[in-house]
């Protein structure tokens, strides 16, 4: 699934979105705990759904090779987070949806956990 399709499904706005039509997402993780994310053996081409808006989220995405980040409940990422995302070329989206609904919509469209637990 491309990031463009995800933007439509989540009715998301793009904070920073380079190559959204070419960015492929194959799995999703949802967490506000950075070490929980780092604990997963994240599958390639994963996307993060979170309610945290600080730059640590983007740094964690970079370190664990997460390809895009979605912020829920209309939360706008902090300026430092956006700057770091630009440096590291990591797309950032914002959706008004809750974590549960965002995850549910993507699951029903065929995306699965970045942990690979439900394949």
């Amino acid at each position: 699934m491309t990031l463009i399709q995800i933007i439509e499904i989540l009715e998301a706005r793009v904070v920073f979105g380079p190559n959204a039509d070419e960015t492929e997402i194959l799995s999703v993780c949802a967490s506000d705990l950075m070490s929980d994310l780092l604990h997963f053996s994240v599958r390639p081409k994963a996307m993060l759904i979170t309610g945290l808006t600080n730059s640590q989220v983007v740094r964690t995405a970079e370190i664990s090779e997460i390809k895009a980040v979605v912020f829920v409940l209309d939360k706008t990422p902090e300026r430092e987070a956006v700057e770091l995302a630009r440096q590291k070329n990591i797309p950032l989206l914002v959706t008004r949806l809750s974590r549960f609904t965002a995850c549910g919509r993507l699951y029903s469209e065929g995306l699965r956990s970045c942990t690979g637990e439900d394949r």
Partner: protein
Amino acid sequence: MIKGVIEGSFHITGGDFTNAGIASSEVKSILTGLGISSDIVRRAAIATFEAEMNVIIHAVAGVMHYYVSSERIRVVINDMGAGIPDIEQAMQEGFSTAPDWVREMGWGAGMGLPNIKKNSDVFRLESAVGEGTTLEIILNLREEDLHEAE
């Protein structure tokens, strides 16, 4: 091909969340540039990032040294912090002494040390209460983990 030992170090300042992760990000870039396989780079990056965050959360300051040869990646992190009174307890998943404000930033969930161990082939942790902590991690490299750097 990695010739000899490539080494370097980074200073880490306790409480500096603004620059948190820069050292690990640099190490990740260096390892990638050396042509090390992405799986090993990712494991090393996660282990160093967690270790870097531990210094930022729990210590006044610390230094991260890295040494890379064709046989292994070795990272040593020394910090000036409170030390760990009970290492066995600290290694339990979910155990954390991080304050609430750190947890609100997404850290301190008690997964840091287990994550470091999980992503390392060798994990050594020594600590003296009131003095500081030394963590050494090694990731072994096999011939197939190395390819020509771009």
